[in-house]
């Protein structure tokens, strides 16, 4: 899982019309040693009003467990089209998930928020484990999650 690199063609929702300029962004999510099985993580973006915009990555490949990523599930209804082609394996305790993707410039400093929902078998579901505003200034600043994520950083 360490240093998984992926360059993604983003879902149309994230490539806003007329703003084709995009830059590669690396998202690094490190889990703490919470003592359970591999965590499911959903990375997605909401706009200034809190409305769902699109998904960036889904760590975990069994759709029957997606309901435990409850905020993401509530926003998408578990729609598989939202994560088509951007799904990977779940992330073990203490491991790091690193993904690199092209994010439109227009997503930064425009009120968008990056969320991570986390869920672990037989442990508490943790929606909004991370909720961090996407800003140019915030890049490179690690954020701590609530329960399973020891640090998250985008740059």
């Amino acid at each position: 899982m360490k240093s998984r690199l992926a360059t993604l063609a983003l879902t149309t929702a994230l490539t806003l019309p007329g703003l084709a300029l995009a830059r590669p962004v690396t998202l690094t999510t490190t889990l703490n040693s919470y003592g359970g099985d591999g965590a499911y993580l959903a990375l997605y973006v909401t706009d200034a009003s809190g409305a769902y915009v699109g998904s960036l990555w889904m760590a975990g490949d069994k759709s029957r467990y997606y309901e435990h990523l409850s905020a993401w599930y509530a926003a998408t209804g578990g729609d598989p089209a939202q994560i088509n082609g951007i799904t990977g394996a779940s992330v073990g305790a203490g491991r790091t998930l690193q993904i690199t993707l092209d994010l439109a410039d227009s997503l930064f400093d425009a009120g968008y928020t990056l969320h991570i929902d986390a869920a672990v078998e037989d442990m508490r579901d943790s929606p909004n484990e991370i909720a961090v505003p996407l800003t140019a200034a915030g890049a490179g600043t690690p954020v701590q999650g609530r329960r399973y994520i020891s640090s998250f950083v985008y740059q």
Partner: protein
Amino acid sequence: MIRALHRWPGLVALILVTVLALSGAALSVFPLAERLTAQQPVAGQSVADLAARVAAAHPGLEEIRRSPSGTITAWWFDGGTPGSAVIDPATGANVGSADPNQMERWLTNLHRSLFLDDAGRLVMAAGAAAMLVLALSGAVLVARRTGGWRRWFARLRGPLAGRLHVELARVAVLGLALSAATALWMTASTFDLLPDGALRPADPAAVSGQMAFPLEQMAALQDVPVNTLRKLSFPYAGDAQDMFTLSTDAGTGLIDQGTGGLLSWADLTPWQQVSETIYMLHTGQGAAVLGLVLGLIALIVPVMGVTGALIWAAGRRGRPRLRDNAPASRAQTVILVGSEGGSTWGFAATLARALRGAGQAVHVAPMLAFDPTRYPKAERFLILAATYGEGDAPASAKGFLDRLARMAPTAPLAVLGFGDRSFPAFCAFAAKVEAAARAKGWAVLLPMDTVDRQSPQDFARWGRALGQAIGVTLELDRQPARPVAASLTLVSRRDYGEAVQAPTAILRFALPRATLWARLTGRGFARFQAGDLLGILPEGSTVPRFYSLASGRRDGFVEIVVKKHPGGLCSGQLLALEPGDAVQAFLRRNPGFHAGRGRAPLILIGAGTGIGPLAGIIRANTRRRPVHLVFGMRHADSDFLYGEDLTTWQAEGRLTQLSTAVSRGARPHYVQDALRAEAAQVAEAIRKGARIMVCGGRDMAQGVAQALDDILAPMGLTPAMLKAGGRYVEDVY
């Protein structure tokens, strides 16, 4: 077919299924342990009450869960740090760590996926499928072996590995089938092959926007008893639009945090309910005792695997490679084999070798491939047939009777049955073959004969008769793997019967020294009891003769009773022994003719040398089990074997009653007559569960069976019924 369906998944999946079973058995302990350590529930407590108590003790409460065993766990996020603990529902206070048990997690991952994620899950699912196929095909085989589904728990006989395999199987098969079938269902569910996903309650059009309604007054939680709770998730701190999510064993609902009212609800779907029940049955989560029972049953699997592999290996060993098998088209003699475990093939190979030695072109084939048109040159068919269960065709003879009925006779045939006389259906299949062949008009080369318990003597005798019939000399020297013989030294002998022209002797040999290995494994002379067999190898012959033992290991000597047969090689040598002389001998167990444990009365019936094992049983009866001995002799002054000992044993309480029958004299009297004379008493003992053991010549045994027929009839019983229940056993020669 069923057998192949049982054998191959068994051998291929042996290790996989063993890993599944052992890890499953280990996992089965956890639900019970959890249930035993779970906090006492508070009678009649509502979720509202529980939530209020927990929330009071834990600021930032995020979630409360109740496991099927009743353990309540809380999760909170307070002051920037997450926390979790097991909760006492009465106080809301922490009573223990909520961290997952690492051992259980490790075992679970091994059990369901070999730590290999989806690939491992599929491998383990294949293991479960193999287990299911094994359980179902095994059940059919058990029913076939015991003679039908209704006789599922009938007494078993035969070699230890096979018996143990079936004994365990009939206890375990239901549990194993349940575990395997539920495992497959769970795998299908994991891979989204079943429509058992949860329904989400509909999002409400609007929420109150209020916060901090007192938990204990929430209407939607007040009516929910704690013992139906699965999970209560709290709204996100500070988010007025968020809601409580309540999951119970009936469904999932959303609750307004400002009013405590239910906003929407979704029931569990029927598929979900089925899946949850199956999950409970498989894991024991919520059914701890059932889980533990299934776990214990799973422990049987490795034993079944090992015994199953042993049965398979024994079958393979017993089936020799056919060398110099003449092509079917040129064969003069065709040997057809009907074998279940494979031992009959060994006899067929010996027969084929002997016939080849006599210049014959011999073709050996399984009975199931029988087609007389394939053998244009055949001069005779020799059919060697074992019997499966209660007279069924053995594996390599399936469909033979149907084929026989369709084919026109070509050459004369002879049938030799293989079996175990202690079974009620001794050589029944061979008899069916013989009857069918005669009915169809096949010429009979030799009347049907039988080989009891792979007796080399029986086989050699039949071989001589066959040789005479076809005009060659046939010496069939069939040597089943014979244990290493030990040298036994005669200690003393007591002679009887000279006066009635039946020289008989009780021969007592010193116990040979057992090696440490033999003692540890209970092999050879390290462990034996009256009723087991002593194989004697007479000088000048490699074919052993078997004598029933009249002593057990505890007696400290080896004793047999031998009567001199005119011209008998072995009995002649034995009766010529003087103290200090030695013979070569080995031990063969005969568990079918042991007295067994228990307090039920014994009725021992024997004549002549047949008293040997019976005397040994009486001598070993220190627990004073009621024993009635019926003994037939020729003349009380001449061949009253063990006469003085019997008096002593009666005085010591080892023998309760002695009836004798004397056949020489003015009024000849046989054991069956003695039995009839005491019919009422015998019937009473049988009513009390008595076990009948008969040892002696075949004629005597037949007479006894007829007498018992008459005695049992008024009770609505038959000797066959007693035999089937293991209460009527014979050692006949």
